[in-house]
């Protein structure tokens, strides 16, 4: 088994607003190993983006705060890391790309300017050398005419090209972990196919771990090795891509997969989960999915189901899986020593 790059344990990120405390991330544990692509899937409000921002320590404070839990990255707990240290890690060891490539680039500076800045923050390099490196990076992510593009402004590029620039920037320091938050959501399908292809290629060539956040199960099936399903701030199921898509255990995952229109099936009525995602609250009683669940019974409304380990890296948060429970070995020894 390869080494763990990222290991999140019982993370609680809460937002303190006028309307009270909102537990956006409520006890999330997940891990990513070297060279692995792990997908986090969930609907809006499930806490998947807050989880990724917590890893980068980018939660706006106030109102947000990591209340408890640890985020182990290469043997060091990021929650306890100072801001100064964190700045060195961001971009250098962990890089992040966002959904909207237009808002992530500064419209007033050329692509080259922004890339060179990113490169020079983390490497001792002259301007000329950094520029050379910027052109190389652009070529690496498949941008044609990289030598000219480097002097162009973000508005001169299309959405797909901008996302490539963001990936080039993220790649500039060869990070150990790339967090991609809905990287293809704003893109068209033909462009999405190009970007996913590029990410898989970088993952293979550089053995870089990727944490991919998405709502699209199609994207998950396309490039992820493992999947973590989130619902209302909690992990509800985890497994390999095949296990999750072919043999989902938790009723929410089952419903989510069934409610997708199938490109291949002929006219049948679409399954739909009744109701909507609940707003996370403190002290929620019972299973968070129970009000929408077709298998719910009395116990689901009274107590909250724990995450049952039903196999290697395979979990499900449903009382129906209680009998499938297995003993799991402690995973401490696999964590990389920083």
């Amino acid at each position, binding site marked *: 088994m390869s080494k763990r790059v990222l290991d999140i344990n019982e993370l609680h990120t809460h937002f303190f607003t006028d309307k009270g405390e909102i537990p956006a991330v409520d006890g999330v544990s997940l891990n990513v190993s070297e060279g692995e692509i792990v997908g986090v899937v969930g609907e809006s409000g499930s806490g998947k983006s807050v989880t990724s921002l917590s890893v980068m320590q980018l939660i706006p404070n106030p109102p947000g705060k990591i209340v408890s839990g640890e985020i182990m990255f290469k043997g060091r707990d990021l929650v306890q890391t100072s801001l100064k240290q964190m700045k060195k890690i961001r971009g250098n060891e962990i890089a992040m790309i966002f959904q909207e490539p237009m808002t992530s680039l500064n419209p007033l500076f050329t692509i080259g300017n922004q890339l060179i800045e990113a490169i020079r923050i983390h490497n001792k390099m002259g301007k000329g050398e950094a520029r050379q490196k910027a052109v190389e990076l652009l070529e690496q992510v498949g941008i044609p005419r990289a030598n000219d593009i480097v002097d162009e402004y973000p508005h001169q590029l299309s959405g797909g090209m901008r996302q490539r620039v963001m990936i080039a920037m993220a790649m500039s320091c060869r990070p150990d972990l790339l967090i991609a938050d809905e990287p293809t959501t704003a893109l068209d399908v033909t462009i999405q196919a190009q970007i996913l292809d590029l990410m898989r290629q970088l993952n293979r060539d550089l053995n870089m771990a990727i944490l991919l956040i998405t709502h699209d199960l199609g994207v998950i099936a396309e490039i992820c090795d493992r999947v973590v399903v989130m619902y209302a701030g909690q992990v509800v199921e985890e497994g390999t891509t095949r296990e999750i898509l072919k043999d989902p255990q938790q009723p929410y995952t089952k419903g989510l997969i069934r*409610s997708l229109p199938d490109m291949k099936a002929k006219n049948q009525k679409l399954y739909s989960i009744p109701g909507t995602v609940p707003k996370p609250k403190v002290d929620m009683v019972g299973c968070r999915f129970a009000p929408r669940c077709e298998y719910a019974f009395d116990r689901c409304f009274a107590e909250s189901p724990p995450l049952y380990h039903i196999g290697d890296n395979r979990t499900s948060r449903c009382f129906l899986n209680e009998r499938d429970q297995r003993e799991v070995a402690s995973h401490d020894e696999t964590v990389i020593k920083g």
Partner: protein
Amino acid sequence: MTKPLLKVEGLKKYFPIKGGVFGKVVGQVKAVDDVSFEVMEGEILGIVGESGCGKSTTGKTLLRLVEPTEGNIFFNDESITELSDEKMRLLRRDMQIIFQDPYASLNPRHTVEKIIGEPLLVHGMKSAQARKERVKQLLEVVGLSAYHASRYPHQFSGGQRQRIGIARALANNPKLIICDEPVSALDVSVQSQILNLMEELRDQFNLTYVFIAHDLSVVKHISDRVGVMYLGRMVELANKDALYDTPKHPYTQALLSAVPLPDPDDKQDRIILQGDVPSPANPPTGCAFHTRCPYVMDVCKAVRPEWKEVSEDHFAACHLYNDNDQSEEQQKPLMQVES
């Protein structure tokens, strides 16, 4: 045989680009460039394409919310392109639209009752009591409750807001509804609820939809026939099974193969198109797709392919099908999306 409810002939919409000191017109964005199709009564016609292909502009010109530059639109055999504003306003009782963003398309200062009641008032239902009754009825039709009428849009979730948008469109018993990306802002589990609702309503009220979306699996699910647009032009139009099983146009083939399917066993070879969609202000000569087409020939760069029937009820605009010689057509290296 049902008759066409909506017939579009050679529809064009060019937006001028103004530039220079005097604001002279220096160019044109050909958002919709010679599109023709028919929609039968009770049918759902899907229109798919990537962003900037002109699908939304097409939808808006059908209602003349955007005035077409050229071309003819017939609704119930009546040409609507020349109608006066007043006549058009009366006609819109029969033609309604549902927008993509349920957050932007509902006035945040109005109650749901006012939002849904407004089209009733505009089209002559003067009695406040009658409007109230009708609003209640409509809310129940779309799966909300009568007590929601006094609430404001911000008190609803995205899916519920889209239901309000649908109720508003249904208020005057329209015949045709243009649905412009009605589910793309919604989460998957809510999206399926809205799609099911729209199908039920179609059966219940005998509606006709023009369903515009970029999500190919959604369009496949709901439509009877599907048209594919690229850079302002319709490139292929066919019955949905024919289109998804045996796509004819190389762009449709690439588009279908690019969709990631939620199935780990599906490892089909993707046709990954190189490059981006060209700018509609300066579209390529000849076939608009020739810059990215894997089968490009010399003729594609020079001559715009004709829109023609390549097999029964299957239309495409591509030079690969230019001669009607069947034997030759079969030898063409067409990739099929495996099913």
